[in-house]
């Protein structure tokens, strides 16, 4: 079971977490020829409410499609951080944002608190793309797929005219992830 990697993106509806889960699964399944399953949970609302997107990646066929003990979690709300941190393996890693989460009492495993919202505001001019920054940070920190694969998968999903914007967001994520690893 050791070659299974379980990842969860958790936050609120509308943050684009289901989409980045799909992009990560596509990077693994299509560009790296691994097995990947992406599942999601969300309420009936179109915006708000809690939302989670899970990706299981393995070289072997994947039986149970949902994540049960997480290797990585990206949490973009306080609620999701506090609620789901307990699903992390002892050796797992949480990536979260300095402004969105302030109470770390539920923390477990390795914790990276990084400036994703601040960077989005300062470098992109808006919060649109926060999900892609988080995806970049996750890929940099976890190495679960290559940077090349995630960029290809992202570009295939991005609407025309928004390629540069998203590439920039991804690179911000890579950089933040890299800085976090060094600290």
């Amino acid at each position, binding site marked *: 079971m050791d070659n299974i990697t379980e990842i969860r993106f958790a936050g609120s509806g509308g943050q684009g977490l289901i989409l980045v889960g799909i992009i990560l699964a596509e990077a693994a399944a*299509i560009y790296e020829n691994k097995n990947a*399953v*992406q*599942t999601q*949970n969300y*309420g*009936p609302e179109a915006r708000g409410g809690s939302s989670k997107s899970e990706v299981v990646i393995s070289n072997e066929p994947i*039986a149970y499609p949902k994540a*049960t003990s997480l290797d990585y979690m990206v949490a973009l709300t306080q609620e999701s951080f506090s609620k789901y941190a307990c699903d992390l393996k002892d050796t797992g890693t949480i990536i979260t944002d300095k402004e969105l989460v302030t109470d770390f009492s539920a923390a477990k495993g390795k914790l990276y608190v990084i400036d994703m919202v601040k960077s989005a505001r300062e470098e992109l001019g808006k919060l649109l793309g926060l999900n892609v920054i988080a995806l970049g940070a996750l890929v940099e920190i976890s190495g679960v797929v290559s940077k090349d694969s995630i960029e290809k998968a992202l570009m295939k999903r991005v609407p025309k005219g928004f390629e540069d914007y998203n590439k920039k967001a991804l690179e911000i994520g890579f950089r933040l992830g890299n800085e976090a690893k060094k600290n």
Partner: protein
Amino acid sequence: MSENIKLMQGNEAIAEGAMIAGCDFFAGYPITPSSEVSEILAARLTKKGHIVIQMEDEIAALGAVLGAALGGAKALTATSGPGMSLKSEHIGYASMCEIPCVIVNVMRGGPSTGNPTLPSQADIMQAKWGTHGDHAIIAITPSSVNESFYETIRALNLAVKYRTPVLILTDEIIGHMREKVIIPEKDTLEIIDVKLPDVPPSEYKPYNYKSGKVTPLAPMGEGYRYHVTGLSHGETGFPSAKMEVIQDAQNWLIDKIYNNIKDIEKYEETMTEDADILIVAYGSVSRSAKAALSMARAAGIKAGLFRPITIWPFPEERIKELSKKIKKILVPEMNMGQIILEVQRAACNNIVKGLNIVSGEPITPDKIYLKIKEMM
């Protein structure tokens, strides 16, 4: 990297499978968690010049599908529990009039409106008995996105071959999860097309209860004239109250499926040869069962898995056979105990226990593993 490798949802795989199998008509009424099937077919089938209609409700949607099928279309509709209840009336009509069609039910929690975004397997018995009157039904329970693709093709084939409604029962997990599918070339697949009768229109009889062979359904508009009614009918399709006609027709509706069970049934066995305990599981729960099987084997428990892919007709002969040497059977289901009744009937001398979770959370592998340990 091939262009044919795609990461897609189960619902998308059903739409892809339908298209490659030659589905050329879809009518539906949107309902979570099945709506992606109609969304995708609406976008894609219409581009090929085929017809997709959003009807005023689920009954009308199946009505449109049956009309299209009588016109020679390979027609499909998709829905979930509440829509399935409404479609039941027309499923009986399709059985009685022997009209081929495929009905997808992406199961969600019930009864009534239930839990639209949560998975369930509680419509298994409804699939068999939902419409009134004696009839046989074919129902298929895929357990992966890839299987949703291939089983949709098989469902459309079986519908044409046996002139019967065929149900595809997935659930919210399979319908919404994304997994890899390698789309094959069309010419590598077995696809059964609607064919014209091999007799001239003047000699064509749409129904035959005695020959043991399924008469092709002549598409209306091709010169073949016949009557279609939900009343008991004879070989021309006109109503008949003759007792022998009624009896023959009823026998035929059952026999055409059950006499061909070897062609229709499909199942997968994992490590059943030396098993001391058998898990019988289908759909998304069978994936948890497979993971639990690995846990049990690692702990030295000889567990095996029997996974029906065709759930109706139920593969009772094989269960009966397996039950001669495996004395304990566990049937985990996301319902309060439905297919377990069939397993108990087939394996009547065995200890058959259920694991029934209906909270909307999937049944996890460790819950199945714990139950296996408890039974050993």
